[in-house]
């Protein structure tokens, strides 16, 4: 369960990298799926469903790729449904429980600002599949980021209540932001191999984007919190993750060997 990259073949390294990108997308798609039939308006049921579908699409290609490169021959479903919590490599941001709509927009703003920079870089990936995902995803993520932006503006500069709630949401999301931009060993090695991007290198643009939106929304970025999340890339997750997996995997695990 170590993330040390020494001794990995090029394929295995790419597999590790694809796996962690795929896990971010898969787990966030799972959370967004919870919104469908619960959104503030029907247009938003559709929009959040759309974004979830885009992420699920990214996840499926990336997980399949990971399974085919890592030597185990696991399918996307093997990886999604029959992997234990310690094997998941997503950041804590995406696994946090669904909260109110303000929290979701704060999370989506940061996540899509991160993914926009990430995929912009990965368009030049030496790995064809990663590059292919990136080429498609840059357009998708542009829409996600714009969607979050429009809502942060409306909520920040809407009513007194929405202003306060959106500000609170930014504060609640803040401890999970830094982890997105941590230089984990797999990303660093993948970047050196020309396959991936260093998370740290994505920070400046993403931060500038979010700062601009937040200030235009008459909000302020919260201070650096005392506590910040760590460990997702090592399979160390927060409390909600086990419950998320229980729900996601239960039916598949209840019918081992079945096809659907």
């Amino acid at each position, binding site marked *: 369960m170590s993330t040390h990259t020494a001794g990995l073949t090029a394929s295995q390294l790419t597999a590790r990298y694809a796996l962690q990108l795929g896990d971010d997308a*898969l787990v966030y798609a*799972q959370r967004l*799926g*919870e919104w*469908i*039939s*619960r*959104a*503030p*308006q*029907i*247009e*938003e*049921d*559709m929009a959040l*469903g*759309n974004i*979830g*579908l885009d992420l*699920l*699409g990214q*996840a*499926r290609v990336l*997980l399949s790729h990971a399974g085919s490169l890592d030597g185990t021959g696991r399918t*996307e*479903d093997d990886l*999604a*449904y029959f992997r234990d919590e310690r094997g998941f490599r997503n950041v804590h941001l995406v696994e946090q429980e669904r909260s*109110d*709509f*303000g929290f979701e927009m704060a999370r989506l703003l940061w996540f899509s600002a991160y993914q926009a920079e990430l995929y912009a870089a990965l368009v030049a990936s030496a790995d064809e599949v990663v590059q292919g995902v990136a080429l498609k995803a840059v357009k998708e993520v542009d829409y996600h980021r714009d969607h979050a932006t429009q809502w942060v*503006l*409306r*909520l920040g*500069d*809407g*009513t007194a*209540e*929405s202003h306060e*709630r959106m500000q609170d949401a930014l504060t609640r999301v803040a401890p999970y932001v830094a982890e997105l931009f941590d230089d984990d060993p797999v990303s660093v090695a993948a970047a050196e191999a020309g396959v991936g991007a260093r998370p740290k290198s994505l920070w400046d643009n993403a931060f500038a984007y979010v700062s601009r939106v937040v200030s235009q929304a008459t909000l302020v970025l919260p201070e650096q919190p005392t506590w910040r999340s760590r460990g997702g890339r090592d399979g160390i997750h927060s409390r909600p993750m086990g419950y998320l997996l229980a*729900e*996601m995997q*239960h*039916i*598949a695990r209840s*019918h081992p*060997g*079945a*096809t*659907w």
Partner: protein
Amino acid sequence: GEVGPDFDALIAADQRIEPRDDMPEAYRRTLIRQIAQHAHSEIIGMQPEGNWITRAPSLRRKAILMAKVQDEAGHGLYLYSAAETLGIDRAELLDMLHTGRQKYSSIFNYPTLTWADCGAIGWLVDGAAIMNQVPLCRCSYGPYARAMIRVCKEESFHQRQGFEILWTLTRGTDAQKAMAQDAADRWWWPALMMFGPPDTGEAAKGGHTEQSMAWGIKRFSNDDLRQKFVDMTVPQAQKLGLTLPDPDLRFNEETGHWDFGPIDWDEFWRVLRGDGPCNAERVSWRVRAHEDGAWVREAATAYAAKQARAHTQESAA
């Protein structure tokens, strides 16, 4: 209001009535009720299948299901828009849904207990819905007819997806086969009830069939549509290898139709009155989503107003 001669002429000529046309108040009210009920059914109908999005047993099925439930939201939107052309707005319609003054299809008051239910909903419920809706593509009210064309196209796609879920299950493990059969057992009769009470006899009282037919809103009787559905579906069940839970089901060589046993209309009326397995849950789920989102909608309105003011001031400057 006053209705010109055009309305009757248009109806007689089987032409479309458009929002700008004069129409009898009763026609307008009937259409609002029907379109709203249809829209509400799409919105409430997101819940039974939405229940399986987080638990779908493969990523491919998860993606298909998310897209399907999203389509239902889309159908709801077209239909609310069609209703709005009749001079009522979506907020009012939703309020009537939330307070029980307007209904949605009773079928959505049944629970989705297993993954196979997603298949059964697609196969039977969407199948029955299509049967009801295809004639509405020729409905006399233009905006409704046009919405239905789009809806029907997607529904038939959903119906095939549902059939395919069951096809896979009935070719799967014993547990999967049992799951599929159990779903068919539970959804068959409620699906037959979707066509509404019989056209004749005690249960037919209080229906709107005759007037709706005269107005070109309804094209076939409930019993005719139900029979069409049974005739279409029985061979599909045979292909799937599923037994439909009706000992009286048999092909009638004389009529060329499938005869079927008596429907439990007591259950139908009980569910319609509010005592179905999920009536309380469906409405309270919907109301909670609406209430939880009130602050968001208010913010959007306030923001739009601010933007409009800023724009006006800019233009004025």
